[in-house]
């Protein structure tokens, strides 16, 4: 199609109107481990597979779900190191907001600023786009919210979404299972069942990660034993 001739430079449009590097970044995301999020009526849950390259890796040292502020958490699909950079920048932006206004940053504002950073890396010289899509879960005065941010810098608010490998099956499963009145515990069970759908091997508290935020507005990542409890309930 001639697109490949334009894939060398990030900041050049191809004749078909695409920025090819962003398409490739989305492919990198699409081959990353599955992650998903569900917005319930009284909270949000995000979850991801945590497949480690070898059984010798100390799984307690790996944490994919991160806290951005006490009431906002994030999970990614794609390149882990890229997500660390974004988490660091987002945390700093949230603290800058607090320093200025002495008020916790609203979820939409933080998502917008993170998306702006990601967009900057699609329009600057000498840089490449981030190879991650983020799922941001937060609870503020507007209630529970779930946002997805893509390498292009576009962001969407979702009731439930999935990213990474197996995304189409996961989304179909979520579409069937999702209800508006779902409560947080049901959402966690649905998240676990969705992960199980495409899971290779035996699912356990050690190879998935779950983060949730409820009415208390405190985001927490569940410990492996807490995840095991939910897994047993979901059986």
């Amino acid at each position, binding site marked *: 199609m001639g697109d490949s001739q334009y894939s060398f430079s990030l900041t050049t449009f191809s004749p078909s109107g695409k920025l090819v590097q962003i398409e490739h970044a989305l492919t990198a995301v699409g081959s990353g481990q599955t992650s998903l999020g569900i917005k319930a009526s009284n909270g949000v849950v995000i979850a991801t597979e945590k497949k480690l390259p070898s059984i010798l890796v100390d799984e307690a040292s790996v944490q994919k779900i991160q806290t951005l502020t006490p009431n906002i958490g994030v999970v990614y699909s794609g390149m882990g190191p890229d997500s660390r950079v974004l988490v660091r920048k987002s945390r700093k932006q949230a603290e800058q907001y607090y*320093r*200025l206004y002495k008020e916790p940053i609203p979820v939409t504002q933080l998502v917008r600023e993170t998306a702006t950073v990601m967009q900057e890396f699609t329009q600057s010289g000498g840089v490449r786009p981030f190879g991650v899509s983020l799922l941001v879960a937060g609870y503020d005065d507007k209630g529970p919210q779930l946002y997805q941010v893509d390498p292009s810098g576009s962001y969407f608010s979702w009731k439930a979404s999935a990213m990474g490998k197996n995304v189409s099956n996961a989304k179909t499963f979520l579409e069937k299972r999702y209800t508006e009145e779902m409560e947080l515990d049901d959402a966690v069970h649905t998240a676990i069942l969705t992960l199980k759908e495409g899971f290779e091997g035996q699912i356990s508290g050690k190879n998935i990660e779950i983060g949730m935020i409820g009415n208390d507005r405190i985001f927490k990542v569940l410990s492996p034993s807490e995840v095991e409890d939910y897994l047993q309930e979901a059986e």
Partner: protein
Amino acid sequence: MSIFEYNGSALVAMVGKNCFAIASDRRLGVQLQTIATDFQKIYRIHNKLFIGLAGLATDAQTLYQRLVFRNKLYHLREERDMKPETFASLVSAVLYEKRFGPYFCQPVIAGLGDDDKPFICTMDSIGAKELAKDFVVAGTASESLYGACESMFKPDMEAEELFETISQALISAVDRDCLSGWGGHVYLVTPTEVTERILKGRMD
């Protein structure tokens, strides 16, 4: 003469029952000469948030323009009005940015916050916030205003009584200060309406 006393000003804000009042004098002077007798020192940020700026008039006007700019952008981005507490933190940050070349202003901020709870505060020219539950004062007449407010203030006054009290406190205080006066300008704000009144005092 201190730079804060170049133009002359008197500002006071008081808390009532589910309402607040903010009042200022109307004189603009250049040291001993009076230039204007209808100078505005209290500005509306939105219907439930007012800021009065005492001190050097040019800095007051510039600072007000900067704050309106920040507030408008905030409103566009966040699609909501700024709470008074948030606005006060913003003013404090803006003032401290100029720590070593400050705005020669003393702001008085008054607003209705969540659930229409009245909020008042003042700060010095480099952003040290002082929250109060009853009243705050600023300007060249501040010492007289402290005395007048302390004796006249009662907690939980209704709107009309609050208006009377703040007006009496302002007029009696500026009468003791040669750099402020020439009438008064009072805003009385309740959850449902904003009333603006001009006071006639000693025109000297």
